């Protein structure tokens, strides 16, 4: 099991893992609040200032899975994997434009989730259920994929095993994570995010300086990768599209995938949880300015897919490319450090995701449909329990379901998540749409999006738009249908449900209001 273990790397790895586990438990005492209250456990009491939010949201959005998967796609097919860069450029203007309003209304009305807001705005608890259900459905496979990222680096440490023993370190890590999330709530990932992000910055800076220096500079790296892709395309007889630039047929999918992913991102419960824990609308605005620093890091990490080619790394599974690159280019202890950074990078989002899903389940499924009389203390207790159940569920997915299935579900998750965009984001600016219209639009979008993905070619992320010969991301096609249905129904059906929010609720609170 540990005959081939890389000891220096494994010891550094274990040391950092221990450090963050201790931090996770200590975090319960940080910025002390009553952890038996959902606002405290599930949103950190909305007391995170610009710096803490920057670390937390950055650690939350740029996940371990991203750090493994994006360079893996770049390694496999080149430029197309860089859709992540326009995608992450698009998200911050959107964040700046919409979330200060969302924060203001959730703060005033005591909303914790998107479902809470939608119920308040449209007075339709079925729409609330749809929003909550979508969030939980899309989050489950995403948590599972964090485990995949973690398992990749544990494998790279030289850990091997048969059957269930293979997953032993992962299971152990996850139990620890589950326990401190249960105890400390959102404070745990917020505190761990500091360590994780600093580690990621260190390894990226080291990698982008040292690796090119040893491989003959960036020009040589790009040329080597370009040559590999040319061979690959030639061998496939032109069927595979790969290269340093986008092939003509890749351009429309590239653009629509970037836009669709950007619209979906902030709809995920974990994004909402991370952002709503900010202490003010202005904290969010400052973060929209400062968070692109992480995108730059992601861009540099993506280039590691090319560095792997230049270093002559040949792996059957592209997801192994980056770990193998580190093992080849760095001393063992530093490889251990980078692996620890990636593994800890999985803990932060996994914790926030389970909290987001737990908040959503408690507030928007349990409370309205099962026990409307639930007390705040019981609410927090239930959310804590749910965060455990969600994580056990994700672990079971990884232990017993093929990884490819989790990957496919995650792709579908993005398509599903966009379908709540009209209800949440349009609602911040207008109450023209009706709850029933949005609900019907959501249903139509979910069915169309899933149906398009269920093609004969298995789960394809893009689809040809009829008659144009242009392929577009399924999520965007489904969103168009969603909006069209919502608009038509809102036009013909009376829109007279109660709206408990007022226009002034969406504006920044005055300074004295924030002190309450």
């Amino acid at each position, binding site marked *: 099991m540990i005959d081939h273990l890389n000891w220096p790397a494994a010891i550094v790895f274990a040391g950092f893992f221990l450090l963050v586990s201790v931090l996770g438990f200590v975090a319960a005492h940080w910025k002390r609040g009553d952890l038996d209250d959902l606002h405290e456990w599930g949103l950190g009491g909305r007391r995170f200032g610009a710096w803490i939010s920057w670390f937390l949201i950055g650690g939350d959005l740029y996940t371990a899975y991203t750090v493994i998967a994006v360079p893996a796609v770049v390694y496999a097919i080149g*430029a197309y994997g*860089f859709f992540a*860069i*326009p995608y*992450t*450029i*698009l998200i*911050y*203007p959107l964040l*700046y*434009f919409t979330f200060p309003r969302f924060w203001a209304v959730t703060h005033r009305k005591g909303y914790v989730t998107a479902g809470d807001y939608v119920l308040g705005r449209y007075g339709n608890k079925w729409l609330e259920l749809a929003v909550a259900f979508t969030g939980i459905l899309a989050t489950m496979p995403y948590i599972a994929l964090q485990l995949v990222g973690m398992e990749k680096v544990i494998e790279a440490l030289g850990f091997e095993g048969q059957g269930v023993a293979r997953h032993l370190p992962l299971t152990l890590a996850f139990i620890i994570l589950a326990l401190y999330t249960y105890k400390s709530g959102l404070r745990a990932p917020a505190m761990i995010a500091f360590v994780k992000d600093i580690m990621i910055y260190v390894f990226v800076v080291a990698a982008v300086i040292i690796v090119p220096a040893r491989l003959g*500079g*960036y*020009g*040589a*790296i*790009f040329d080597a990768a370009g040559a590999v892709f040319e061979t690959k395309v030639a061998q496939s007889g032109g069927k595979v599209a790969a290269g*340093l*630039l*986008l092939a003509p047929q890749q*351009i429309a999918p*590239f*653009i629509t995938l*970037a*836009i669709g992913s950007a619209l979906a991102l902030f709809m995920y419960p974990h994004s909402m949880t991370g952002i709503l824990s900010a202490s003010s609308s202005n904290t969010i*605005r*400052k973060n*929209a*300015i*400062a968070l*692109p*620093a992480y*995108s*730059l890091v992601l*861009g*540099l990490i993506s*280039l590691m897919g090319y560095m792997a080619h230049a270093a002559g790394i040949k792996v059957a599974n592209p997801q192994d490319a980056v770990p193998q690159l580190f093992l080849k280019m760095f001393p063992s202890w530093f490889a251990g450090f980078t692996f620890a950074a990636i593994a800890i990078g999985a803990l932060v989002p996994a914790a926030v995701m389970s909290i987001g899903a737990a908040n959503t389940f408690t507030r928007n499924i349990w409370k309205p449909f099962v026990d409307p009389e639930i007390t705040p203390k019981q609410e927090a207790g239930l959310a804590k329990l749910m965060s455990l159940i969600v994580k056990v569920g994700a672990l079971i997915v990884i232990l017993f379901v093929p990884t490819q299935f989790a990957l496919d579900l995650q792709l579908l998750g993005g398509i599903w998540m966009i379908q709540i965009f009209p209800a949440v984001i349009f609602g911040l600016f207008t109450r023209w749409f009706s709850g029933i219209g949005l609900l019907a639009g959501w249903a139509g979008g979910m069915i169309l999006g899933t149906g398009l993905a269920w093609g004969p070619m298995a789960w394809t992320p893009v689809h040809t738009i009829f008659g144009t010969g242009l392929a577009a991301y399924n999520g965007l096609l489904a969103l168009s249908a969603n909006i069209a249905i919502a608009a038509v129904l809102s036009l013909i059906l009376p829109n007279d449900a109660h709206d408990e929010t007022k226009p002034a609720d969406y504006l920044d609170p005055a300074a004295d209001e924030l002190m309450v």
Partner: protein
Amino acid sequence: MKYLLLIIPCALAVAVPLYNLMEPRLFGFPLFYWYLLTLIPLSSLFIYAVYKGEGR
């Protein structure tokens, strides 16, 4: 109206035909890559400009 400034980096990010090019290279990076990597801090500057205009 200041929010219109936010559209500029978004438009530049999705204008793929504009940057789907190898040349000119910069420090060995093909244009596609240095364009996208430069656009990230640039987008941040646009958002900063809007932030400075808040409340005016």
